[in-house]
């Protein structure tokens, strides 16, 4: 344990690991490609970044206008989305071929037909936050029902980190400011219960935390063989057949197994190999 840390050394405070705390207590073990996330849906930290409104954690839709906000903003509750803050666009193009080998074209989403996608807040607002935290910034909004309708407001972009006044001085701390997320908000958009998210194929997000391919070894034709972490009753020395992750497949752990006893069905994997099945 350290003897002292410079109060201004916020980086050291962010990296700090308290005595007795395993590495998995640290935010550097929590994934942040949140869709919706594992330990938390960190996208939620951005909902209240603009004072007066609450944004959707995942899209740029305006969810509510705060009671205490300027009444002018009330209209944003009727179906608007944020499209830019200062000169940072928060939407991006989705382009790609419609047929294999074809040219890249704009690909509207299949649900709403939007021709642009909302970029994740963390990267989209990184520059604005860094340059203007605490200041009012020009925000552009667009109606979701009529793309030609645009509104502009100057809203204050909140400080990400808590500031306190100490001995007359404004001191920045390393903790995420209270006003950004009251209790429960960082986890609110996660699956309920989390076990159902584990069951849906999340293989292509977080393999280092929720493994996909285990007991892997070189196969006889130069490619790998192994097992799916969700396969029931598997044995590292047994036949190496990977069952694709479709929850309906009876060879795979199912929802009920997880609700009832996830601790038995899910195994720790060290050096890519399953632990022995738990005793009871």
């Amino acid at each position: 344990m350290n003897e002292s840390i410079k109060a201004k050394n916020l980086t050291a405070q962010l990296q700090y690991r308290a005595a007795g705390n395993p590495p998995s207590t640290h935010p550097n073990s929590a994934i942040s490609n949140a869709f919706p996330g594992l330990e938390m849906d960190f996208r939620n930290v951005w909902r209240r970044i603009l004072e007066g409104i609450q944004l959707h954690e995942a899209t740029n839709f305006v969810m509510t206008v705060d009671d205490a906000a300027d009444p002018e903003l009330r209209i944003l509750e009727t179906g608007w989305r944020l499209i830019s803050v200062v000169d940072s666009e928060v939407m991006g193009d989705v382009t790609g071929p419609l047929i294999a080998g074809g040219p890249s074209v704009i690909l509207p989403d299949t649900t709403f037909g939007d021709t642009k996608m909302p970029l994740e807040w963390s990267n989209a607002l990184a520059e604005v936050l860094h340059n203007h935290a605490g200041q009012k910034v020009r925000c552009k909004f667009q109606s979701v029902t009529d793309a030609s309708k645009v509104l502009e407001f100057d809203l204050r972009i909140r400080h990400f980190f808590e500031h306190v006044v100490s001995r007359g001085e404004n001191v920045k701390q390393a903790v995420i400011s209270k006003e950004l997320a009251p209790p429960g908000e960082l986890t609110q958009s996660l699956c309920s219960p989390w076990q159902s998210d584990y069951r849906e194929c999340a293989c292509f997000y977080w393999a280092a935390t929720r493994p996909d391919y285990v007991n892997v070894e070189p196969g006889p034709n130069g490619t790998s063989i192994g097992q799916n972490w969700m396969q029931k009753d598997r044995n590292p020395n047994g036949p190496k057949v990977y069952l694709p992750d479709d929850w309906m497949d009876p060879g795979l752990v199912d929802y009920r197994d997880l609700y009832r006893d996830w601790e038995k069905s899910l195994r720790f994997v060290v050096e890519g190999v399953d632990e022995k099945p738990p005793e009871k």
Partner: protein
Amino acid sequence: MTTLAELRILPPFAIARLGSSAEPMDNYEMNLTTPIGWRQLADATTFVVDPQSCEIHAKKRPFVVKFRDENGKIRPVAPFLEVWARLDRSDELVPLDLNLLLKLGKEPRALKWSVVTGNIKAFRRTGDPADKVIASTGIFSDHQVKPLLGQCKNFFEQKSIPLGSVQYIKPNEEFPEVRLRFTPAAGRVYGPPLESGKPDGNLAGEVYDPTKGHWKGYKDAADPKTDDLLKMRRATNPGNVYAGDDYDDSHRQSWGYLDDECDGIVEVELEVGGSRLSAFARIAAGPPTFAPDSMPMRTVHDEIEQAMLGPNFDSDVTEKEMDEVREIVRRALETVRLMNTGQMNKPSKQRGVGMARMDFLDVNRALEPIVDPAVADSLAIRSRHERLLIALDSGSLAWFARVLREHDQVGDLSTDGRRRMPALMRGADARYLALTRRQVSKIKAAAEFILRTPAGENEK
């Protein structure tokens, strides 16, 4: 008379991990002993809390790192939070401990703690504030375990969900620092009773009253043909992520299930020198890390660091940044080692494959494999990452920076675009994962650094 200018709780954000064992998980280290091997788990200083005295003592070492207890139950990860203080006219934080309290003329019970956590997953969907499950300890200064009982207006009378507990550890001579421990819940599922009256075998407790609230039966608005478009936009993305059955092709009807994950705020207050000083930290509880010797590529810490320092890495590159870049490539290796990349690369409309299917379903992109199937196998991809990591080790590779996906290229679903790094993985905005801008910036800066100094100078 000594007095304080400020209090802080460190770490500012601690994560707990669910498990039903009564024995919390020991501390361990993940040691990198070889360039491309697995991290080795080794025992580390572990505190055991005595249930009678509420004090801690250090566990005898060495011990074997075990994630389960004798009964096979998973040991929860229960983090400690320490209180640190800045003395008046000092620019340093020091641990608040018995000695410092003595100098301040205070006893440990002068500290006032208060913890509030919540699980508001149901509220996020229904919009009904009465669906919020909130646990609050109220103010306490003693060292007994304080359960976090999640209360909800829409529960049956007297019912609650245990969301874990907190304990203000009693400082002693051997461990005089002021600390609090957060122990998460067991990882159980709760909900309403079944209509039939039979017990629901999935649940540890039938707590939700379906006559009071509408979490049971709730459906995300998902069909543009029948649902209100604004309601659809309000739904989470991804949507339909709650336990339930498929009401029809687009809608999932909730069974009203809740879990015992939560996140919240730990606050401490001390009156000293005529002022009331307070500090807070954040906590969250999630599932265990099931591959404890592997680390993810993009983490909450990377987000927080970017928010703290900005998207551009502007300083001089030192060995520290080189180490951080190696760490990113290593984590990429650790991810692909556990991922069936050959399978994830497949284009199929069936479940059990990766992003190619999502690209097709979400935006109608032509259904094609992401990288050429000949090179997609896990071992081939793992080989490449290993050799890249070794070459980075000798300080002479810099092309990596050129193949990274920029934050605004996430929607580029062309053949080349989809192959950028990290490949095959989904990001927070539903399309392809990009590292944080700061991570990308650091890698680019490190790439310049590599080319400017000769190989071997980096290695002592």
